[in-house]
């Protein structure tokens, strides 16, 4: 634990040569990477808190899980699987885009960036489709806490994806200005990390929101709710 070691230094004593020559050689990529780590921590806290409140609510008398019985929407969650595949594809193609940028291949960059954008848009579209289907089948946002949480959590997730897309568009725009593959690669590296993180959050939400009553009971028992 480097930080614990750092906290034990006595700065009032004469410093050894190593500390004296301490240099961060700061650069933008490192700074952006640090900021992204903290940002991901912020998002984690947001979804963690939503999850805690959700798990508590699963045990209330009026909670009706969205899967388990044949008439419930996510007993057959094929459309959500389809959306998951879109997001996985977007996550893979953004890595390919980064690799293509490392190889200075314009064609590779172009194809993989287009694929990323396409699959991300397909994911968002797929999510909107699920919301519409839920509404059409009478699973309104206010009808049941499970529905409320479904709309709320997937909505928050989609909002984060949209924010990511805006940053992604900015990367492409900046690349079109300076055509520096090096900078594009370093930006795409961070974009990819964000995409993977949101994929992870989505898979977690998928598991959480499509659980049946028995699963929630087990989780709640385990968590002490």
């Amino acid at each position: 634990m480097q930080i614990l070691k750092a906290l034990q230094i006595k700065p009032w004593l004469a410093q050894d040569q190593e500390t004296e020559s301490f240099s961060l050689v700061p650069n933008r990529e490192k700074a952006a990477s640090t900021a992204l780590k903290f940002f991901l921590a912020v998002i984690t806290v947001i979804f963690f808190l939503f999850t805690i409140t959700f798990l508590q609510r699963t045990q209330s008398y009026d909670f009706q899980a969205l899967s388990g019985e044949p008439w419930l929407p996510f007993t057959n969650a094929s459309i959500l699987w389809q959306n998951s595949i879109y997001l996985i594809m977007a996550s893979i193609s953004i890595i390919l885009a980064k690799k293509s940028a490392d190889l200075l291949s314009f064609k590779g960059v172009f194809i993989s960036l287009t694929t990323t954008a396409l699959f991300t848009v397909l994911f968002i579209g797929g999510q909107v489709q699920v919301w519409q289907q839920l509404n059409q089948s009478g699973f309104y946002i206010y009808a049941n806490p499970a529905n409320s949480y479904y709309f709320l959590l997937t909505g928050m997730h989609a909002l984060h994806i949209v924010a990511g897309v805006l940053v992604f568009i900015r990367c492409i725009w900046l690349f079109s200005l300076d055509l520096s593959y090096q900078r594009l690669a370093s930006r795409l590296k961070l974009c990819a990390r964000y995409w993977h993180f949101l994929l992870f959050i989505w898979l977690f939400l998928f598991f959480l929101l499509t659980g049946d009553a028995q699963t929630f009971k087990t989780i709640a028992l385990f968590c002490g709710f």
Partner: protein
Amino acid sequence: MENIAVADQVDQSSHPSSFLSKYVWSQDHKVIAIQYSITAILVGLIALILSGIMRLQLGFPNEFSFIDPSSYLQFVTMHGMIMVIYLLTALLLGGFGNYLIPLMIGARDMVFPYLNMLSYWTYLLSVLVLVSSFFVSGGPSGAGWTLYPPQAILSGTPGADAGILLMLISLAIFIVAFTMGGLNYVSTILQARAKGMTLMRMPLTIWGIFIATILGLLAFPALLVSAIMMIFDKVVGTSFFMPAILSLGETLDHSGGSPILFQHLFWFFGHPEVYIVALPAFGMVSDVIAVHARKNIFGYRMMVWAIVAIGGLSFVVWAHHMYVSGMNPYFGFFFATTTLIIAIPTALKVYNWLLTLWRGNIHLTVPMLFAIGFIFTFTHGGLTGLMLGNVVIDLPLSDTFFVVAHFHMVMGVSPVMVLFAAIYHWFPLLTGRFLNKALGKFHFWGTFLGTYAIYLPMHYLGFLGVPRRYFAMGETDFIPESAQTLNAGITVSAIIVGLVQLVFIVNLIWSTFKGKKSGRNPWQATSLEWQTAQFPPGHGNWGEHVPQVHRWAYDYSIPQVKDDFIPQNYSPAEVEYLSRDQNNSREER
């Protein structure tokens, strides 16, 4: 991989030339800091006026026709929310954080200047949304600054329509602004420090701001989550926090929600918020005391550890705000214990400030007066915190004026004392001029004695059982008439303290243009912000070369050294020593 040193990027951010790019759409951290500060102080003045109106009602009930029970609750709510979030958080982190971080760690600017600018404008938007609620039908929310559901969004509560929505939306916008700023602060501190500026060489101001920012980044999401869920309850008709409820004889559509859940979320943010405000204040007061006592801060390492420990502990004490909401007795025991444990690192800091003063060469300058004043008010507020942290003492005192007195002393008056100390201390860095000393001393004594005149008697009102948030006491058996006299006295003191702040504002404006010139480094401080090439520091802060750091920030009164301070950027070769004769004669003196 390309390696662009942030330190060498001064010319990349072109120097702003037009008025707009220099003072309005500026990406310079110093200008953004001033924008943050002015906005926060202006909105704080609104909250100050609201508190004056509340005091008029409490001191002289039924004398003022423009205050009715509804508007009183609205003033309470807006006063609390503005002071805690839009003034203190914004001024300490947005104002001082922005100004001091790059200068104190030897950076040219924040690592993301554009994001920094965006952070300020988003903050301004949140302020405008909040203030706009004064002008909508029904007025601002009157739910109390804690916004507890169900009453916050039910008809019957003042501002339950547009007011509460604007409040929640404004909070969400503020959190977005804070996140943009906060990511900048932590990334800058971690990635853009000058050569030689190790973590343990950073001034305590930076440590306080650093840990407070991390707390903010991890705690504000709880407020965001609760605000979003409450907006859904209000607008879409979900039941996250709303139980089955009968309101004004009508059965509402909500069912099954938990109001207590909101309280948990709110205080999971609310308690760290206390330290988001307190930690930067702890840091700044440490530096002010060390500089004006010409002594190194006592126990630097302990001070850093205490800041980190307080930050960590602040996340496990939140439910001490909810003893009266009802909870498992073991939880009460747990939260009381953790709350009392926080007293250890906090007391350690108080002792270290005192020990820094002990045998120091104390200069009773205006910043130092405010810093010493802070030690008094903070100790006072902290001690009543020990009382309220215990379940058995909290239960009878909860929702009385004792609590109001406690939290105003500990997180109202104390951080404000530090803010004043900091403004008087760093004003020469901003303007090259001192704030007027005589007006400053008048301001200090008026504020210090005045706040005691307000809050000491308030503790007694609490002991008597006078409840908070009541528009008028009416006739009761347990509150004697003398309590009303005390209330009137408190109001007179509050009005006087409010007026004394006008002297400060006048001083601020007058000294900016006509104040006595300070010259470079007027307090003879060691930290980097005073060692810039240009004074006051210009765009890019450091001229051609960023400084190299050779020592910590507290080399004061080192024996055998010619001056009684060694700036952080002085190499061992640059330090001038006294000859043996001079040293002997100094010792004899």
